[in-house]
């Protein structure tokens, strides 16, 4: 198992995430794992009891998890949002923009490459789930 990268100050949740179906059936779970075909909006009524949402990427080319992440952040979820699975260096920066703040890749990443990936973009063109100011806002500040 590769090291989990975490960009949060709080303590990690210490119990495993359950499936969305299990989560919706039981009232005490605080960690859930979303698969690509799950509807992230099913979690929205329960955000206050969630501390960890894992979004699984079985294959890096399946981009549904990016939308799941943004939908959760747009709804105000501020717990840990962790990308797990086929998470590669070249997807990290976009994942971060979509609201992920933790990464649990199947394969260990080279930390120099990770740092370079997060430092890559001097600016951004769009509003997303991070705090970055888009170029259009800077042009008309």
């Amino acid at each position, binding site marked *: 198992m590769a090291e989990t990268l975490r960009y949060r100050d709080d303590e990690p949740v210490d119990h495993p995430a359950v499936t969305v179906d299990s989560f919706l059936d039981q009232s005490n779970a605080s960690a859930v794992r979303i698969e*690509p075909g799950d509807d992230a909006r099913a979690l929205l009524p329960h955000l206050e009891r969630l501390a960890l949402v894992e979004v699984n990427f079985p294959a*890096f*080319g*399946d*981009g*549904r998890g*990016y*939308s799941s992440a*943004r939908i959760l952040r*747009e709804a105000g979820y501020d717990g840990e949002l962790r990308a797990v699975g086929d998470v*590669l260096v*070249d*997807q990290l*920066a*976009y*994942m971060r*923009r*979509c609201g992920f703040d933790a990464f649990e890749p199947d394969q260990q990443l*080279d930390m120099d*490459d990770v740092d*370079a990936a997060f430092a*890559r*973009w*001097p*600016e*951004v*063109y*769009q*509003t*997303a789930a991070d705090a970055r100011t*888009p*170029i*259009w*806002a*800077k*042009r*008309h500040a």
Partner: protein
Amino acid sequence: MYKYDSYDQAMVDARVEEFRDQARRRLEGKLTEDQFKPLRLMNGLYLQLHAYMLRVAIPYGTLDSRQMHALADIAEKYDRGYGHFTTRQNIQYNWIRLEEAADILADLAKVEMHAIQTSGNCIRNISSDHFAGAAADEVADPRPYAELLRQWSSFHPEFSYLPRKFKIAVIASDTDRAAMRLHDIGIQIVQNEAGELGAAFYVGGGMGRTPMIAPCINSFVPLDQLVTYSEACLRVYNRYGRRDNKYKARIKILVHELGAEEYTRQVEEEFAHLLDQGVEPPLAELERIKAYFEDPLFEAGTPETIDRSDPDFALWVDRNTVPHKEAGYVAAVISLKPVGGIPGDATAEQMRLMADLAKDYSFDELRVMHTQNVVLPHVRKADLHALWTALDEAGLGSPNLDTIEDIIACPGLDYCSLANARSIPIAQKISERFAETGKTATLGQLKLKISGCINACGHHHAGHIGILGVDRKGVENYQLLLGGSEAEDVSLAKITGPGFDENGIVDAVETVTSVYERERQDGERFLDTYRRIGMNPFKEALYG
């Protein structure tokens, strides 16, 4: 035309360095080919039959002479001295080395160009009307809207791993010169009764193996919601577009399977949610972009009359120039379809000449057409003879716009690893046949489009006459289609029947044109006659 500010330049420069790093990691073995492939595709780099191909974006088809010169330099420095203009207003180089790709991107960045998202399962280069800013029938210049969406879609964090590629076209007139309804999203800028501009959204069109015409899902999106509405369209697609089957992954399949009404309902719901998320740039940003597209300083009172005493020149004027909104001006089309040539190819020398002529005669501006020709959008009628003389000397004076010689053809099996059959030799033989017999002149407007496989890069579904190359037990075979159109009278062509071999398809094209000549009534184009009399007379002549 649009100029980068320091922000745009910083983004393109960062992309070059990102790709340089990715290519390095690939060459060092830190990235597998499977991992590298989507990254190189999003920088326009394809692996073809013989070598890498690099597809360079020409956003909404507009470029200046400095940029065209840079394209010529790249053709000479990194390729074999020529390039190929494509049906999505891009240019492709066919003989590229991976080790040099980042250097090419760096050369492009110096002239405000790039290859960002010209391939891959992301939002592609945004195309537009090649006569934008020159056409008399537009309600606005569509290019500022395309540029706004170019910036929104570049490096989009949520929409870079879509189910499949995603193509957007923007027009602003009822006449469709950009095949708008055959795109994943076609946007028409329209004016409402109150005189306000808005955007009509057509979603779910496309060609490929399952051609579909996009339905209108919203007839008027206000301009200050354009980005938000686009974002909603894409989010519904990213979440629910099929990923189980590559051939059913385009948005047209989602819209078809859900039904346009249900897809629209989902978009509207997402849109209502996104309106509160602050994704829309202020209208001031659109105004900033619009300022770059103001008219050049047209000369008032420049002569309307053209000296037509040279018949070759007069023919070129009749065929290759189109009316302009400004008195005394035309838009002049440079045909990249010489008889027997490769449709859309231009040598570095020809590119440089086109660039210089644009500087001398067209306010330093050129356009690439989706029909693989080049336009000088603003030419004084008084300059046409000098322009034509220079073009003709360079082999660029073919008077064949919109004729049967003005063929769209994909690269086909001569270059492409997806192709089942060659396209280029068929195009060459057809243009030679019709030039020899002199029938080009009598047939009038006839749009012929050739694809070398069912992916339909040569737009065969949208040809008045379409040709589809297939593989039949190891032999190239060509199916004939009739009745397609990519214009405002959009329709999908229908197959005539059994296919033909390489020589047979050329004869078959001649046969159907003979039916048209026999049956046509006053002023009818081939397409009009086909629509009036139907398929049967053509079938009888072909197979009877």
